[in-house]
Structures are given as structure tokens and as C-alpha cells.
């Protein structure tokens, strides 16, 4: 249960209705022990609201109730509310709810003199005592005016009835048809002075919106606006518009976008619970980035709710498969839910009410709205803005990260604040076409990111078969280049570099060759030298031998002379 907002000091005791949103704007519920008038035109949900009040009272607040139906039989009623999951028969069997049909057939009744409605009082009293009722619904009391012609008696009896209800201390809801210029056809508001709720069903531009307003609530401060409300398979829910303040906590945790380089640009990813706007012209890849976001959320085990206002679930699944993102397994595991409706399917308030309801029930950590710009087609720009403001507030209060996609029209200024919601947006990533050299390429940059020193760079953003890829754009002497011009420039640079390296290799080879030649020459010279050296060595050896021989010969000769020489003298 959301906090009740207007719980004043020593305020009136209240009976909670259990209806989403209604307890919030009434500050806790309907005045306890007093009658409340619910009026509205045919088909605006009076009976349903009254019934939900009763059923929730019996099932959630342990307050049994009595439903007096003047228009439908008990069986018809049970049938009608079964679609909302209320089993009246079961509740009746447990004596928690008593449904009684009061049949008044004008044609069968002749009035002959004074009468009163004591029979009704007796029946009410009996029914209240039987189930120990704390709550009573009279739907639609005004039928009495059709059944009896003596209006003076009826009016005094109604006055007595309301007093009687108060004396019994039951919290009563009385429904009434709306009259011309008055709240109720029979002026019942005269008798019920404590709380009057007006239901309305308006059709604007072929879309219908149900609205609820508290006309009066004695002794309580209450929301005075018209609040849109929704009736669907789970009953009634009212959407408080303005009850949210700027009190949400700011988380320090970052969540990944699923694209590493985008996270880098955002200083680690957007903060949890903030709102991210992804805007760009048609075909700039917004949905692809959103799908990455969603997938990253699922990977972390966090539920993601994806509102798709342009494509069906299967179409998105197929398209994302083409860039390598398989989302189907996450759907099967209950982590990803698509809601695909046309924005024009119902009015903005209904959209908002429906979204509130989904978000409350599914409790996602990430909500993707693809695209929000379509809401303008369901209302005026001003209304769309108010609605988005409320949605952003609601999500922030829940600490739910929101990703809004916005389609900007080609011609307009890209950075013009869309729907004037940029002030609500914490992170704004802009996707743009960069048209250069006869082709369009996708560029991505971060326009703003609160609380982060975000990158100022434009990145080129490429869709590949394995997802989104962010590349640096070419920034060089030739300027900023993208796409095939970037590729061509890169190729040119590659060629030049290759040529350079080839030249270097050539020089290296030449050097090597020269060294080899030199070394060969050195080797040859050494060989020659050693050959000559050997020859000379031989010659030297031979000479030395020869000279030795001469010495030897001389010695021999001398010796031989001395042997023959003593008589002969000196010669």
C-alpha cells in the first residue's frame, strides 16, 4: 500500500477502500461510519467502485459488507464482477458479504395513502446483523424515485435512511446517477454531506478517459484534481497525479547500458533510478540500443518492462536477433515483458494509469518507453508533457531506471528539447546521422549526464551482427570522418604505412647485403694472406735449412783439415 498522503492531525477515522490510489487522494479512505455519495453518468463505473470497496473491505480489512442492489439481481451482479476476480458467491457463503436485490416494480404498486420505507430498513438491518456488516452499499438508491410517486415521503424517508445508517455506524456508499447541472438527478447530495465523489467518463478525440474527482470531503484535506482512473481485469485503480514530490533518494550505483563503450562515455553507465533519454531521427538505432539496455538488465537478473508503441513483440525479437541479441530466453524466464499497444489506443491518462499499474504489479528495475514521442499523437503536446512528467516522477520515486526513446523529426533542431522534458531527464544520449561523402552514418554523443564527467566525444555507432559497436570517429588532418570515408582514410593510411615499412625493410636488406659483401671480401683476403703466408714460411724454412747446411759443411771441412793438418803447418 502506498503511503497515505493527507493523513492529517486527528483526522476523521477512515475506512480504507483498498482501491489503488483512492486511499492516497482521500488521505486514507472514506469517512468511517458515514455515508459517501458516488455519482456519475451511466457506465462510468459507480457500481464497480462500490463493489470493490465492499469486496476489499471483506477480504483485506476484515469488514463484512452488505450490497443492496436496486437495479441488478444478485446473480447478475455476481456475474458482472466475476471478471474482476471477485467471487461474490463464495464471499456470501462465508457470510462476509450479503448481496440483496431490492425489486421495485412501479406497475405492480398502487399507492393508497401514507406509507414509509420501514420494510427497506428492516431488510437492511437484518442483512447488516446477519454478516456483522461494517460497510453498506446502496446501488442505485435513486431507483426508489422511479418506484414511488410520493416524492415528499421518499425524501423524508431518505433523510431518515442516512441518519439511520450513521446511527448504525456503517460506512456506506450510495451511488446515484448524474443529473443535468446537478451532481445527482434527485439531489441526493443534499442528504449526504460528508463525502461526495464524482466519476466521469469523457471522450476526447475519440479516446475515452475515466476521471474521478472528490467534490467534497468534510473534515479532511483531499486532492481536488480530476484523477484519471482505470477499470481492468484487476478492478479499479485511481492515479494520483500530483501526490509525488521531489523526495526520491539518489542512488550511487551505476547500471550498465550493455554497451561497454557507452558505459565508458557515461562514466560507468547511468545512475540507477535515473531517467535516460535516447533521441534521434528515424533509423538511428534507438531501439537497438534500448534492446542492449534491456538485455543488460536481464543479465543482471533485474526485471525489465518494455513498452513498445510501434512494433509488436515478435517483430522486435526478430529485429534484435539480426544484430545478435536473443531476447526470447529472457521473456521465458520472466525477466523481460513487452507491452505493445498503439498510443492512440486510449487517452494519455489511461496510458499513464495502465503503466502505473503494470509497473506496480511487475515491479521492474528498468522501464523502456519506445518511443515516447508517439504520445503526442494521443493528446496535445502540453498533455503529453504533463503525462511524461508524472511518469518520470513516478519511476524516480520507485528507483526504477527509465529509458525513454524519442523520435526527432529530421529537419528540426536535433537538440531542441523534446516535449520540454529534458529538465526531467538525467542522461541524454543523442543519436544523429552524419552525412558525409554520399552516405549517412550513425553518430552518438552524450549531450548531458547529470553527476558525471561524461565524454565529450562523438562516437561512430555501428550495428554489427553481434550487437552495437561504438568506434572512434577518424579525427586527423583530413577532419572528422565516418563510415566508408573513415574506412578509406584508414586504408590510405594503412597503405602509406605499409609502403614506409617496405622501404625500411629494403634499406635493411641492402645494408645486410653490403655487410655480407664486405665480410666475403675480408674472408677472401684472409685466405689469400694465409696462402701466401704458408708459401713464405716454406721458403723461409728452406733458406734456413740451406744456410744451416753451409754452416755444417764448413764445420766438416774444418774438422777434416785439422785431422790432416799438423805437419803441413798453416797452409
Amino acid at each position: 500500500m502506498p503511503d497515505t498522503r493527507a493523513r492529517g492531525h486527528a483526522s476523521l477515522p477512515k475506512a480504507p477502500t483498498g482501491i489503488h490510489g483512492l486511499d492516497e487522494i482521500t488521505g486514507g479512505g472514506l469517512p468511517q461510519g458515514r455515508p459517501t455519495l458516488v455519482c456519475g453518468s451511466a457506465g462510468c463505473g459507480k457500481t464497480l467502485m462500490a463493489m470493490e470497496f465492499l469486496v476489499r473491505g471483506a477480504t483485506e480489512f476484515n469488514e463484512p459488507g452488505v450490497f443492496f442492489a436496486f437495479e441488478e439481481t444478485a446473480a447478475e451482479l455476481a456475474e458482472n464482477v466475476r471478471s474482476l476476480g471477485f467471487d461474490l458467491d463464495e464471499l456470501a457463503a462465508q457470510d462476509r458479504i450479503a448481496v440483496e436485490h431490492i425489486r421495485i416494480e412501479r406497475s405492480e404498486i398502487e399507492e393508497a395513502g401514507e406509507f414509509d420505507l420501514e420494510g427497506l430498513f428492516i431488510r437492511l438491518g437484518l442483512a447488516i446483523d446477519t454478516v456483522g456488516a461494517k460497510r453498506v452499499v446502496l446501488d442505485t438508491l435513486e431507483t426508489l424515485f422511479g418506484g414511488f410517486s410520493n416524492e415528499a415521503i421518499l425524501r423524508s424517508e431518505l433523510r431518515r435512511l442516512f441518519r439511520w445508517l450513521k446511527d448504525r455506524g456503517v460506512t456506506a456508499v450510495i451511488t446515484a446517477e448524474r443529473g443535468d447541472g446537478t451532481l445527482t438527478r434527485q439531489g441526493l447530495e443534499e442528504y449526504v454531506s460528508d463525502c461526495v465523489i464524482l466519476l466521469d467518463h469523457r471522450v476526447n478525440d475519440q479516446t475515452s478517459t475515466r476521471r474521478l474527482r472528490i467534490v467534497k470531503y468534510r473534515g479532511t484535506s483531499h486532492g481536488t484534481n480530476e484523477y484519471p482512473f482505470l477499470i481492468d481485469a484487476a478492478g479499479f485503480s485511481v492515479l494520483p497525479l500530483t501526490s509525488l514530490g521531489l523526495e526520491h533518494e539518489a542512488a550511487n550505483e551505476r547500471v550498465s547500458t550493455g554497451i561497454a563503450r557507452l558505459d565508458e562515455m557515461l562514466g560507468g553507465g547511468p545512475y540507477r533510478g535515473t531517467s535516460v533519454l535516447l533521441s534521434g531521427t528515424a533509423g538511428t538505432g534507438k531501439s537497438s540500443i534500448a534492446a542492449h539496455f534491456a538485455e543488460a538488465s536481464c543479465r543482471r537478473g533485474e526485471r525489465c518492462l518494455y513498452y513498445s508503441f510501434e512494433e509488436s513483440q515478435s517483430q522486435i525479437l526478430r529485429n534484435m536477433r539480426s544484430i545478435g541479441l536473443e531476447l526470447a530466453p529472457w521473456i521465458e524466464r520472466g525477466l523481460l515483458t513487452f507491452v505493445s499497444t498503439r498510443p492512440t489506443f486510449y487517452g494519455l491518462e489511461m496510458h499513464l494509469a495502465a503503466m502505473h499499474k503494470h509497473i506496480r504489479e511487475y515491479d521492474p528495475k528498468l522501464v523502456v518507453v519506445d518511443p515516447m514521442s508517439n504520445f503526442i499523437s494521443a493528446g496535445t503536446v502540453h498533455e503529453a508533457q504533463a503525462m511524461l512528467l508524472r511518469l518520470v516522477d513516478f519511476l524516480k520515486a520507485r528507483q526504477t531506471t527509465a529509458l525513454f526513446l524519442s523520435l526527432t523529426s529530421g529537419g528540426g533542431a536535433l537538440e531542441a528539447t523534446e516535449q520540454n522534458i529534458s529538465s526531467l531527464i538525467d542522461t541524454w544520449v543523442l543519436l544523429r546521422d552524419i552525412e558525409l561523402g554520399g552516405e549517412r552514418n550513425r553518430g552518438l554523443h552524450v549531450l548531458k549526464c547529470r553527476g558525471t564527467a561524461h565524454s565529450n566525444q562523438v562516437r561512430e555507432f555501428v550495428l554489427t551482427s553481434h550487437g552495437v559497436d561504438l568506434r572512434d570517429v577518424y579525427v586527423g588532418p583530413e577532419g572528422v570522418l565516418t563510415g566508408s570515408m573513415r574506412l578509406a582514410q584508414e586504408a590510405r593510411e594503412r597503405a602509406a604505412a605499409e609502403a614506409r615499412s617496405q622501404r625500411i625493410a629494403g634499406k635493411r636488406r641492402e645494408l645486410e647485403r653490403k655487410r655480407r659483401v664486405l665480410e666475403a671480401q675480408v674472408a677472401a683476403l684472409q685466405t689469400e694472406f694465409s696462402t701466401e703466408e704458408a708459401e713464405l714460411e716454406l721458403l723461409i724454412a728452406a733458406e734456413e735449412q740451406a744456410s744451416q747446411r753451409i754452416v755444417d759443411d764448413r764445420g766438416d771441412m774444418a774438422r777434416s783439415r785439422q785431422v790432416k793438418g799438423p805437419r803441413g803447418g798453416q797452409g
Partner: protein
Amino acid sequence: MNSERDDRGLDDGVWELRLYVAGQTPKSMKAVENLQRMCEEHLPGRYKIEVVDLLKNPRLAKEDEIVAIPTLVRKLPDPIRRVIGDLSNVEKALVGLQLRPTRST
């Protein structure tokens, strides 16, 4: 043929009337009084009046679908007719009970 016999039965049969009141209020006393006088005058010897006090038998209020008090119900002859009020307006009461016949005039 049926309707003819019923028409005759309207004259001859016994009228079963039930008057629902809530306690001994002046209004209910007056209603009982008025009813008896009316029956004596128009249905001498051919009527049965049962007075039901819903304060004593509150369940009957639901079963017989009573809202206004006093309510006079003609159980027989068929069809059931209802007249509410203290029957001080005799003319209307007779019309309501279909006792103001057009046949004799």
C-alpha cells in the same frame, strides 16, 4: 375459457390478503382498520386477512420483497397485486386490488 372462470372466481372464491406492518404504529393500525372496513363492504364473508408484523418476522421482508410499509398483498385470486400505504385512499386501494369492478356498471 380460463379467464372466464377466473373472472367468475373473482366473485365467488375466497380472497387471501396479507398486510405487512412494522409494529403497532398509527399508520399500521389505520391500515388494518381501513382494510377490514373495505373487505366487509366489498367482500363480505369471502376474505381472509393475515397481518404480518415484520418486526417479529424480519425475514419475511426479504422473502416477500417488501420495501414500503404498510404493504397489502393480494395472494389470491391470482395474479398477485400490491397496494402500499395506509389505505386511506379507498378509491386507489380498490383499484389496486382490482375490487373496483367495471363489470356491473
